[in-house]
């Protein structure tokens, strides 16, 4: 084959067998991966369905079944089955405090204790106070919103923001967990149906905690089912 013919042949995609075989292999690989993905999705959906659940988002995102969201360190064949945060009712304390902080300057002004303070100082002082109130509420919201407990088809991930500077990410494979336990104590947790979930692990990290999770019984049920399914698959050698 001359050079000109070779170029023409390449244009038509028949230059030699190497690239074609490679393309075919890539397609087969892609289809295989796709099937595996579908398998995982089906497994997750089956477990959720068996537990009497459906994809849904409740409690302002504190209880999210099959959320279709991505998280840091997510693997390719991994899907989030449950995304949990603390029940929104636990935020009531700091919300009330923030509201109190908002009205406090007006209250003190009404008492007349700042009559000797020049107006411009009062203005800047109030602005600073409101800024600090904002920061306080914002930080509390961030702590709640980003402290999450994820149950995927492979593992459990606990992301805790201790404060603005400290983040602790713990994850444990579903194969390495012991029986998960739920603890529901007190008036509030019974009324609003939230509780702590404690997962004992066989690994270095002894326990994973999800504090004040909504619908804890359902969560424990789903974790158990996922763990069983994983065990079954391992026994089958899949």
């Amino acid at each position, binding site marked *: 084959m001359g050079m000109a013919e070779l170029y023409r042949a390449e244009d038509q995609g028949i230059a030699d067998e190497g690239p074609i075989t490679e393309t075919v292999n890539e397609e087969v690989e892609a289809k295989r991966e796709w099937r595996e993905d579908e398998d995982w999705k089906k497994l997750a959906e089956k477990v959720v369905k068996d537990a009497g659940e459906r994809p849904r988002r409740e409690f302002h995102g504190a209880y999210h079944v099959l959320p279709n*969201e991505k998280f840091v360190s997510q693997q390719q064949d991994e899907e989030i089955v449950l995304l949990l945060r603390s029940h929104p009712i636990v935020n009531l304390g700091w919300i009330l405090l923030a509201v109190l902080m908002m009205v406090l300057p007006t209250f003190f002004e009404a008492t007349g204790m700042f009559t000797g303070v020049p107006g*411009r*100082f009062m203005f*800047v*002082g109030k*602005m600073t106070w409101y*800024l600090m109130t904002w*920061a306080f509420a*914002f930080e509390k919201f961030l702590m709640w919103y980003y402290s999450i407990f994820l149950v995927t088809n492979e593992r459990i991930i606990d992301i805790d923001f201790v404060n603005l500077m400290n*983040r602790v990410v713990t994850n444990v494979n579903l194969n390495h967990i012991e029986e998960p336990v739920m603890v529901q104590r007190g008036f509030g947790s019974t009324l609003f149906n939230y509780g702590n979930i404690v997962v004992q692990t066989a690994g270095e990290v002894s326990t994973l905690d999800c504090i004040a999770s909504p619908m804890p019984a359902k969560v424990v049920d789903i974790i158990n089912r996922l763990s069983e399914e994983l065990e079954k698959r391992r026994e089958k050698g899949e």
Partner: protein
Amino acid sequence: MDSNNAVNLIKGLAAGGPWIFVKWMFVVGLFVYLMFALIIVRQAQIMNQTIDGMYNKTVKLGAWLHFGLTIFVLIMAIVLL
């Protein structure tokens, strides 16, 4: 700064009355607070990488807005007081 300059500065501040001290306390305090606001912005960015959630943009906006307002209040403290 030699001792004469320091004395002059203190005399100047004293001439301004007690409110000049309050002003500079505000300015220094707000400057420190500005650093804190910057940390919040950075932390919101890091937190956003944790999970791709529906409030990520709102959180980012909230952090930047807080930072912007802190700069505004700092400027107000310098200019107004």
